[in-house]
């Protein structure tokens, strides 16, 4: 794979609430190469969206603050940038697609107007006809049928799939080097989701950009991503190549998640189930956050949080099971 595009090191984003400090992102490290798709997987409240918001420095302030770590984007630390420099980067070099396209589109402006705004904002002043041509071009790339006739439409005249494709068009308009898609297909139907994921993959491969896909669906990661990062309670528990992680998950949480999925063509009397519930951030168990639900729990798990152990070929997992020798 190509050179490293994004390197996140020991990122810590905490939320300061009246009830206490919530360590939503607690020492997260990962990287994305050029032309590579990384999937971030986890359940609701595991910190995956907060990680993404931290990369573009859009954490909800003042409650949440990035309190430590480094975010190196093409070698530059984003945490040292001031707001005007960040504005240059957002929407230009790093763009985002969010879960609900209706939240990203303004209902009272036309589609053409909103997409052309992307060109205007980033200092590409173009004469009107060229601008229109550009907008049609980018909408055609995301497969909006007869785009030139839809420029004067409003978002409500588009279907859910078309709205999300319009958001994708806005995201790639500035030819970004990194695209962050946070649960982009949760509001879409299965067949429309399939179309959108194929489009996303196609765009990523054509432009050789990096892609971070945040989802709770292990199936989506399997068909779209090269590498996977699994998060639990604000920490990364396992990371590695998708085929290897799926073939032999090293962390009991990843293993349990994969086993708990109902699969087509396999019918068990009962599904494998993970007991208990994800812990609350204000009330994390001592030691490893997963131990109360873990089927391989040992004594040390209750006392100490495990470091990341290398597994093979760049795979890592934070589990005491992987420590060689006596524990």
């Amino acid at each position: 794979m190509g050179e490293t595009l994004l390197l996140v090191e020991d990122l810590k984003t905490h939320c300061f609430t009246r009830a206490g400090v919530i360590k939503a992102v607690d020492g997260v490290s990962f990287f994305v190469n050029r032309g590579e798709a990384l999937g971030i997987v986890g359940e609701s409240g595991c910190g995956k969206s907060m990680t993404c918001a931290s990369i573009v420095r859009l954490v909800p302030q003042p409650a949440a603050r990035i309190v430590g770590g480094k975010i190196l984007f093409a070698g530059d630390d984003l945490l040292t940038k001031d707001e005007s420099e960040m504005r240059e980067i957002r929407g230009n070099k790093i763009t985002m697609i969010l879960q609900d396209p209706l939240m990203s589109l303004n209902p009272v402006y036309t589609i053409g107007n909103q997409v052309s705004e992307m060109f205007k904002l980033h200092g590409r002043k173009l004469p009107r006809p060229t601008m229109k041509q550009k907008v049609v071009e980018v909408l055609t790339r995301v497969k909006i049928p007869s785009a030139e006739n839809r420029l004067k439409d409003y978002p409500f005249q588009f279907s859910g799939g078309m709205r999300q494709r319009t958001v994708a068009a806005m995201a790639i308009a500035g030819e970004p080097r990194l695209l962050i898609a946070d649960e982009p297909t949760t509001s879409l139907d299965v067949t429309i989701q399939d179309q959108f994921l194929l489009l996303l993959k196609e765009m990523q491969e054509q432009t050789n950009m990096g892609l971070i896909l945040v989802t709770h669906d292990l199936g989506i990661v399997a068909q779209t991503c090269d590498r996977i990062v699994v998060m639990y309670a604000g920490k990364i528990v396992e990371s590695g190549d998708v085929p290897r992680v799926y073939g032999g998950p090293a962390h009991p949480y990843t293993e349990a998640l994969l086993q708990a999925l109902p699969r087509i063509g396999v019918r068990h009397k009962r599904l494998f189930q993970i007991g208990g519930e994800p812990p609350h951030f204000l009330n994390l168990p001592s030691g490893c956050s997963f131990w109360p639900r873990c089927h391989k729990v040992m004594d040390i798990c209750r006392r100490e949080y495990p470091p990341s152990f290398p597994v093979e070929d760049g795979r890592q997992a934070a589990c005491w099971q992987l420590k060689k020798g006596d524990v």
Partner: protein
Amino acid sequence: MQPLLELKEVYKYFPISSGGFLRKKVKTLKAVDGVSFSIKEGTSFALAGESGSGKTTISRLVLLLEKPTHGSLVFENKEVQQFTKQDVSWYRTRVQAVFQDAAGSLNTRMRIKDIVGEPLVAQQKRLSPKKLTEKVEEMLGLVGLSSAVLDNYPHELSGGQKQRVAIARAMILNPSLVILDEPVSSLDVSIRAQILNLLADIQERLGLTYFIIAHDLAMLGHVSAQIGVMYLGKIIEIGNTDEVYANPLHPYTRALFAAMPRPEPGRVKEIPALQGEIGSPLDPPPGCRFHPRCQFAVDHCRKTRPLLLEMRPDHQVACHKADSLSATM
């Protein structure tokens, strides 16, 4: 086994008015367009389909929240259309529902014990508080909640616990049919398996009949005995779940299977992604409703509507090309 619930050629059309002074009726939204199926006692029947396919309208018809435009529903050999007032209140004790969004279906200002006990209070006016609490505790035990949550409010519970409360409330009247409308789609992956196993346990213990509505084929394949696949208000394929999953015959069913994301890296899809989007029920395409998206469509499909025909044992398909398609499998 005799059917517990039977739908016979059920239609539900909604008139859409133009607005304005005279409210002239301009269009008809064909939400459910001639659907028949029956649910055998003690089994699980599933309806699958994308949004706009009419599956939720069917659940509203079964819950008597809507009246069908044509057709009839038969429950325990009684015609639902001819129900008297007493029949309706009896029916409401026999048929209960669990909805997708547990948080939304629980009153935020009621305590858990009042939420779970309410159906019983509504049905039996003279019930001693002691009996009521006993029954509520029994139901909480059934769904695996401790009686410590009795005095809690819904916001104090997690998503999975809220769904358990919704299940307990549905079970307290000892119904025979429970409608599960997307029972786990709002839950986290690790909680889904817990709820599905719980529902299976309760079904086995109480001999319940489930009517499950969802879009997740992997989940439905695990929990249902019979399945119907809907597209734009019609059932296009129906039959024994294992049989339909082993030999999907309708091009739409096959496309759904292919579009399901599966945790199998490097999987090569059997067929290419489906083009286009589901049509509008206001103006459904003529002939087979699926033809604008179907790669096998011929002229015949554009003109004549296919009927549900038995192509294999316990497996019906509405497709003109099903014969030739089953040969290519």
